């Protein structure tokens, strides 16, 4: 816990995984949703592969193996999950902030992030953590 934090119901989450690769991404989003559900303000520092979670150019596609076209498949996209959490936070009067590590964005070329997701660096992770009540870092494997 950050004993000196002025933001007593703000939680920071640091994450590293890109979309579509492993279960950690699902658990991470479930935690963000749960945090809002419990009326916590949420701050996310997306590091390394996680900067692709907010990439605005993610696209749905059909799936011939599933026998479904694009509309029917309705493929989940993490950018839509972020947007949904942003809406949920707004409806509840909470804040939901998201910073992508800028250098990680550059090297991956995922410079177009959905609205509400900004660009920053490690100092922002420390700022977030310092100002928050608590922080959870989820590393990658």
């Amino acid at each position, binding site marked *: 816990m950050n004993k000196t934090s002025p933001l007593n119901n703000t939680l920071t989450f640091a994450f590293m995984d890109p979309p579509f690769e492993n279960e950690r991404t699902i658990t991470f989003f479930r935690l963000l949703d749960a945090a809002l559900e419990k009326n916590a303000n949420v701050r996310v520092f997306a590091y390394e592969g996680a900067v692709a979670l907010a990439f605005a150019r993610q696209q749905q596609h059909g799936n011939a193996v599933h026998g479904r076209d694009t509309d029917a498949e309705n493929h989940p996209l993490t950018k839509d999950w972020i947007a949904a959490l942003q809406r949920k936070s707004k409806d509840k009067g909470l804040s939901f902030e998201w910073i992508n590590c800028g250098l990680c964005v550059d090297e991956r070329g995922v410079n177009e992030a959905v609205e509400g997701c900004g660009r920053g660096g490690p100092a922002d992770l420390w700022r977030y953590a310092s100002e928050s009540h608590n922080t959870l870092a989820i*590393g990658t494997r």
Partner: protein
Amino acid sequence: MKVLQVIDQAFRTAGEEQDDTILWLTQCMRGAGAELEVLLTGHGAYYTVQSRAQPALKFGAWQQTQPADITQDIGRLREKGVPVYVEREALQERGLFGLPVLPGVEVISRDAVAKLYENADQIWHW
């Protein structure tokens, strides 16, 4: 607020990022005033007995010019006053115990790890 950074993997980003991404993150946050400690356990123990830069990658005509040098990453952390610990049993398991450990790195027993967890305000396991 004191944060213990736990690193139990190694070499996963050394090729492309030309460093260990969490050691790099730690250096940057230290520069922003963070109070941090680093525990190298598991394969992370390898970092503490490195003696030279990583081998440069080469694909076709492409040749890496700045391979990672973990010895410098750890050296910079130590220069900035970040305590760096390595778990003795992690070294022993990997046949590394007895090799010279990088300057300033403290070898601790597995039994002492719980105390590090107790003394830190937060533990970030990467």
